[in-house]
């Protein structure tokens, strides 16, 4: 969401006025952690402002789509209320208070930014879906061994295989396939001008135990994921899923950025990630052959 404001300001070293255009932009905060119950919120305090941001948990009732919270972003380094500036002190209150330093210089990272607040880290993402920074808490915070209990009001036991929810965190519509079979199309995240800016869309895929059932599903092993953005642009990645780590009836969440993927459990306490690469399409377009 970009709003243009034209300000006139005298430039001291010269004898004329320059018109500078500042793009007032925002940071869109998302909490992808899943809870079955309405109510609990993760809170984010920016630059010690008393007006913190409450980020609602992601709910099964809403198809596991995380909801965004918009925060203003202003240029410069002087804190101003709960706006994000070029360098920020951020406190995330989840099971405990986690301090972060969050640099986001306007000159380096212009435009809207998307910030995913996970259990023990934050992901700063550009408006076109590129991973800009992975931020860790300032101190080596020891996470309590029973940390799941705080959010334990979910995690249904079931005798059916669970789903992997595949998210598109990019500006483009994508079609995703796994192991040679289609998972389906996933629309781009909400446009900046929409009612749900940067809100991602998802598509579920079934978890299966064996690679023989892997076409269009996610099996326990190394899954070959192909991402098509149309225009014959193909990307791929390998997403390993451990059946030992994640029982087959446990839902998983696969976030596809433009250049990275993140796979997590519903608590985002067990997270794996990797790069997304341009796929070798096998066309002759990149091959130059010469005959002598």
């Amino acid at each position: 969401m970009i709003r243009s404001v034209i300000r006139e300001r005298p430039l001291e070293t010269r004898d004329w006025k320059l018109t500078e255009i500042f793009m007032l932009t925002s940071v869109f905060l998302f909490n992808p952690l899943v809870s079955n119950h309405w109510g609990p919120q993760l809170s984010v305090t920016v630059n010690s402002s008393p007006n913190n941001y409450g980020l609602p948990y992601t709910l099964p009732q809403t198809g596991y789509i995380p909801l965004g919270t918009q925060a203003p972003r202003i240029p410069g380094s002087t804190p101003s209320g709960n706006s994000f500036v070029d360098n920020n002190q951020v406190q995330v209150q989840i099971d405990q208070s986690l301090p972060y330093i969050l640099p986001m210089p306007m000159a380096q990272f212009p435009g809207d930014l998307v910030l995913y607040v996970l259990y023990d880290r934050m992901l700063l993402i550009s408006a076109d879906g590129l991973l800009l920074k992975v931020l860790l808490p300032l101190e080596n915070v020891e996470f309590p061994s029973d940390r799941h209990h705080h959010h334990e009001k979910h995690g249904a036991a079931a005798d059916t295989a669970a789903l992997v929810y595949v998210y598109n965190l990019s500006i483009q519509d994508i079609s995703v396939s796994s192991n040679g079979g289609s998972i389906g199309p996933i629309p781009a995240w909400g446009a900046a001008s929409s009612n749900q800016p940067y809100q991602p869309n998802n598509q579920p895929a079934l978890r299966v135990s064996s690679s023989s059932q892997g076409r269009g599903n996610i099996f326990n092993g190394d899954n070959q994921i192909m991402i098509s953005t149309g225009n014959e642009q193909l990307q791929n990645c390998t997403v390993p899923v451990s059946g030992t780590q994640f029982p087959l009836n446990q839902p998983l969440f696969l976030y596809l950025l433009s250049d990275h993927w993140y796979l997590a459990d519903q608590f985002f306490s067990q997270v794996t990630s990797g790069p997304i690469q341009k796929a070798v399409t096998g066309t002759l377009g990149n091959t130059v052959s010469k005959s002598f």
Partner: protein
Amino acid sequence: MSSDNTAAGNIYVFNVYSQSMSLSLNGLGISAGDISGWPSNSDKTPYRPFGAAVPRTLNASDSQGKFFNGSNILSILWLDGLYGASVPMSGPLNQDMLLFIDKDSWRLVNQFGGDGLSGSILPAKALEQLATAAKTSHKH
């Protein structure tokens, strides 16, 4: 939990996992049928494991679907797949024992929770590999 054995004791097997368990003992499924996975938190007794009573018997010749005094072969079918374990049993037949089975391990205790024995639950593939390795080493 129904008790199948009135004369001798039972082994009370608890499925400490979220998925239903089909348990076979020494080549035959237990008569109690499948043991449900623990209920979700929407249940009145969330995560409380279910169990089944399995009769004890003395001899291997009578051990199908029961626990005998010796090395019992357990086959466990969960949604995750087929798993196996070997659980040694000994002692007076009229003594109840409790066997807790979770995803990775089993633990056998007496009716007071003492005298614990424990071991691993292995995927069937791992069991096959162990068997193959044992055969290979035997040949050498």
